[in-house]
């Protein structure tokens, strides 16, 4: 497809925020960034590899201890979730404001979880 035809379809070349008229605009909405199929397949491979690693780590409980195991598993899961949001949900190409609009509210469940874990740990160590 020619560049002119792509422009007519609403496809714009993916370029950095500095190329835009404003400070930090990405390409949300109808100004679709040009899809990068190779990147999509690379992300697919990364997700598969991380999934295989996760399953492998889950069988290593006897060897690496539960705290390390849970940390590894949760870290990989959060990494995979972030990759899906950034590349497949196109957050990477959204504006900074759009990214924060999504990320900040999602930090609250994580904060609650942290408080609960801290409280549980406190009770386990020093009693109720």
């Amino acid at each position, binding site marked *: 497809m020619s560049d002119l035809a792509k422009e007519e*379809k609403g*496809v714009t070349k993916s370029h950095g925020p500095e190329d835009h008229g404003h400070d930090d605009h990405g390409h949300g909405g109808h100004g679709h960034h*040009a*899809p990068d199929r190779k990147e999509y397949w690379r992300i697919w491979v990364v997700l598969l590899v991380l999934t295989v690693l996760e*399953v492998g780590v889950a069988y290593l409980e006897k060897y690496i201890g539960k705290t390390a195991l849970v940390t590894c598993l949760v870290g990989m*899961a959060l990494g995979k979730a972030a990759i899906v949001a950034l590349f*497949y*949900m196109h957050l990477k190409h959204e504006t900074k404001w*759009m990214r924060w609009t999504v990320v900040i509210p999602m930090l*609250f469940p994580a904060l609650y979880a942290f408080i609960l874990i801290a409280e549980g740990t406190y009770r386990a160590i020093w009693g109720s």
Partner: protein
Amino acid sequence: MSAVATDHDHALVYPDDQLYSRITAGKLAMWLFLLSDGFSFGGFLLAYGILRGSSNVWGCTTEELVKKTGCVLEPALGINFTAALTFLLICSSVTMVLSHASMVEGDRKGALKWLGLTILGGALFLVGQVWEYWGLFGLFGPHHGLLHEGLKFGASHYATTFYAVTGFHGLHVLTGVIYLSTVWVFTSMGKTDANTLEVAGLFWHFVDLVWILVFTFIYLIPN
């Protein structure tokens, strides 16, 4: 002069907002919905964590535990099978994003092909979940389902939270399959654009994203 700006395809051209650029109303609405849905899943997973963290026995899955605590034996959750379901959802995510890519490039046939594969992946995931719960009446091997093996809703926090969380996610997959099937029909009629597929894709990728977390917390973290 028309008050509403349109592009060559007569699609709405959104104003270049200083903070959010040209994001469409549909896309922003889907993101806001997904945030609220994310809170629902967050609530489920927090409740799961609280119940799991405060229980002495999580999953009475060995004879040793039965003898030690007097609990009723429950089946362990299968990691390998659910890993295959995870693989399926990851594959359906890449096909979804390729469907959107095809539409952006003006290739409607390609978009339909990839979208069809996405729907197939979602449908197979649902079949897998039904097999996990009920065993599909003995089809596909000797497995008769977790319900048959003694994992009863309400019998323990382990069982109840398992069905609550995976069932809620399964409902999302079902909704996604219906949603994407509808989009497929409208796309085949030429009534959709790349934005329609991107908005639908946001929902589908969210379902995949949540499963990544559910798979880790429910299945992978050992008792």
